[in-house]
């Protein structure tokens, strides 16, 4: 009786619970994205410095974060921090820490790329006017890089939302966990509910990410010219 | 030179991109050993006309014959026809991932299945003729525009085409490089090659052409020997067009 499975979705407040779970995912993503954008801009600026020490440190940071699966980073922070520093981080806090570390690396590299693509004479003509370094960035460089960066930053948001699905594996109660709970609770009355519930979760993710992807593509095209 | 034999015949060709005709009822014969130069204002359809001749553009009606055979039908094996009709483009279009010699050899080896050694000998001879033998192993990006265009001519020549089409081949070149390319073409013309040339270089047209064909608004307006055409054009439109190339001296 396959057509019965979907019934579970509308029993009690199940659908609302799923949405609540999705909200946890999105909330963590948004907090991490906002932090990543601020820290990433700073990191990107630091990465353009000619100083060999900052270059080396940022490079190692970037490469390590990028090469490790995000789930490994989650394990490192969630299990490792507790053991090493004796602080008990909750799953949600660990997630924000990890995704911010990761997002900062990604964003930093994007910012660096955008900054070095600005022709050198833009910096020079700023300097020729007597502007301080900070002022050159503030008034000349950053406004030019923003257009290039905003679509990429929006894209990072969808990647963040998708990656945040991993937090179920360190025990955070989010949309997949709620889905599991609903399926468990109805195991005997509606045995085939898993198909419908997981299918719903699949489309919820799609509905969360797709409009954002479209927005990024649209902005990218619009600002190309 | 026997110039009576018709090599390429175009009868009542019509070309339409869907918003009005680009070419309306154009007919033209190209005889063996003849050099035709197509001129006319931008957008008059001369490049489109040239591209119809080797099937890069489809045509809506009319027919094209090569050596008396219809080549404009649906069943045409264009890859066979195109071996007989060489073409050189405005933007050179060398293949950037291949060296000069590999660019030249692609056609002989892959299309004509010729023996590599023999083809390579000929490629070297042709490259020497255009003064580029020492560049045979470099990539196109290391060449100047004029050099690229000479390689492109060699790439077309090595197929031993019966007729060569040149589509504004000097339009993208710096002025000082135009000459080296035109010289190669002039030499080909003297050697008896059959050529159809689209160009904006009036001096060159005058020097190289057996017949000048003036196109305007998608039709052939006037066709004559170069001296007659440039000295006393018969139609108003041709006169007006030629006037755009001369400046009146300020003293007059």
């Amino acid at each position: 009786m396959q057509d019965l499975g979907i019934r579970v979705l509308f029993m009690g407040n199940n659908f609302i619970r799923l949405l609540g779970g999705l909200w946890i995912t999105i909330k963590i993503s948004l907090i991490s994205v906002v932090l990543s954008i601020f820290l990433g801009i700073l990191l990107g600026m630091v990465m353009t410095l000619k100083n060999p020490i900052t270059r080396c440190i940022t490079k190692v940071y970037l490469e390590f974060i990028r090469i490790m699966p995000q789930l490994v980073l989650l394990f490192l922070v969630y299990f490792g921090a507790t053991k090493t520093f004796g602080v008990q981080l909750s799953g949600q806090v660990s997630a924000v820490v990890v995704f911010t570390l990761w997002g900062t690396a990604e964003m930093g590299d994007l910012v660096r790329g955008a900054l070095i693509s600005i022709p050198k004479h833009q910096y020079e003509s700023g300097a020729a006017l007597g502007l301080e370094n900070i002022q050159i960035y503030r008034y000349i460089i950053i406004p030019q890089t923003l257009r290039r960066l905003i679509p990429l930053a929006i894209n990072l948001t969808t990647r963040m939302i998708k990656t945040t699905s991993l937090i179920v594996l360190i025990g955070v109660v989010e949309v997949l966990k709620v889905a599991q709970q609903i399926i468990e609770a109805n195991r005997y009355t509606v045995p085939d509910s898993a198909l419908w519930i997981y299918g719903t979760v699949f489309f919820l993710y799609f509905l969360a990410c797709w409009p954002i992807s479209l927005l990024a593509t649209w902005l990218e095209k619009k600002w190309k010219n | 030179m026997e110039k009576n034999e018709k090599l390429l015949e175009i009868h009542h060709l019509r070309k339409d991109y869907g918003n009005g005709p680009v070419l309306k009822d154009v007919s033209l014969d190209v005889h063996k050993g003849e050099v035709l130069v197509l001129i006319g204002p931008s957008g008059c359809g001369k490049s489109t006309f040239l591209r119809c001749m080797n099937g890069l553009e489809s045509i809506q009606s009319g027919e094209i014959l090569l050596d008396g055979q219809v080549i404009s039908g649906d069943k045409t094996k264009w890859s066979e026809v195109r071996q007989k009709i060489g073409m050189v483009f405005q933007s050179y279009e060398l293949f950037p991932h291949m060296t000069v010699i590999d660019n030249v050899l692609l056609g002989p080896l892959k299309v004509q299945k010729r023996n590599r050694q023999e083809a390579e000998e000929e490629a070297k001879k042709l490259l020497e003729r255009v003064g580029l033998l020492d560049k045979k192993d470099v990539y196109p990006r290391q060449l100047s525009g004029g050099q690229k265009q000479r390689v492109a001519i060699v790439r077309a020549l090595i197929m031993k085409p019966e007729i060569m089409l040149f589509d504004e081949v000097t339009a993208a070149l710096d002025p000082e490089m135009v000459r080296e390319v035109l010289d190669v073409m002039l030499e080909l013309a003297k050697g008896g090659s059959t050529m159809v040339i689209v160009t904006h270089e009036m001096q060159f047209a005058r020097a190289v052409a057996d017949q000048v064909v003036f196109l305007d608004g998608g039709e052939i307006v006037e066709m004559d020997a170069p001296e007659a055409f440039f000295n006393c054009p018969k139609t108003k439109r041709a006169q007006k067009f030629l006037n755009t190339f001369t400046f009146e001296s300020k003293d007059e």
Partner: protein
Amino acid sequence: MSEYAHLYVEAAKLTLGLGAAGILFSLIIGLVCSLVQYYKIPVLKRIVSVYIELSRNTPLLVQLFFLYFGLPKIGIMISSEGCAVIGLSFLGGSYMAEAFRSGLEAIENSQMESGLAIGLSHAQVMRYIIFPQALSISVPALCANVIFLIKETSVFSAVALADLMYVAKDLIGLYYQTDEALLMLVIAYLILLLPISLAAAWLERRLRYAGFGN
């Protein structure tokens, strides 16, 4: 430390094997999809773009849950390994398609024409002129996708596969060997991914050096 090392070796083999299979299928799916888009084949084009949007806007973990826990309810039973490979290919196919497509689109149409003009057939132009150039443009993106997909295999433990994460979690949960388990986990992924990442960077540099561009 060595007493658990063999567990990691076994797990790494599993990860690599499933990863390689998934990447292979991703490349095939990606190539087919990009050709469908390149030639603008009427109905298929629509299907491909729906697939790409679905695949790119949902997480692999959710795709796996659906395959592994959802599908059996309508009688479609797929083994853990099968789910892992199908899921990874479903995800990777769209990424590979985008990489191939951007390469193909970067080649000017006039290259096709000049190939035709010397008498090459359409297939020959694709083979000798379009593909070699498109591929060299796609390589950086393809390499990035390979690394991305291998990293994505880390969620396989969710469908009961004894991969690296699974082993690490076991050691932490059952034996409280947290430090050791995490250290080995990091080392294992470094050994897996660092050579690929370096090779990709080397390949990219070489291609840029050979830099075609007119």
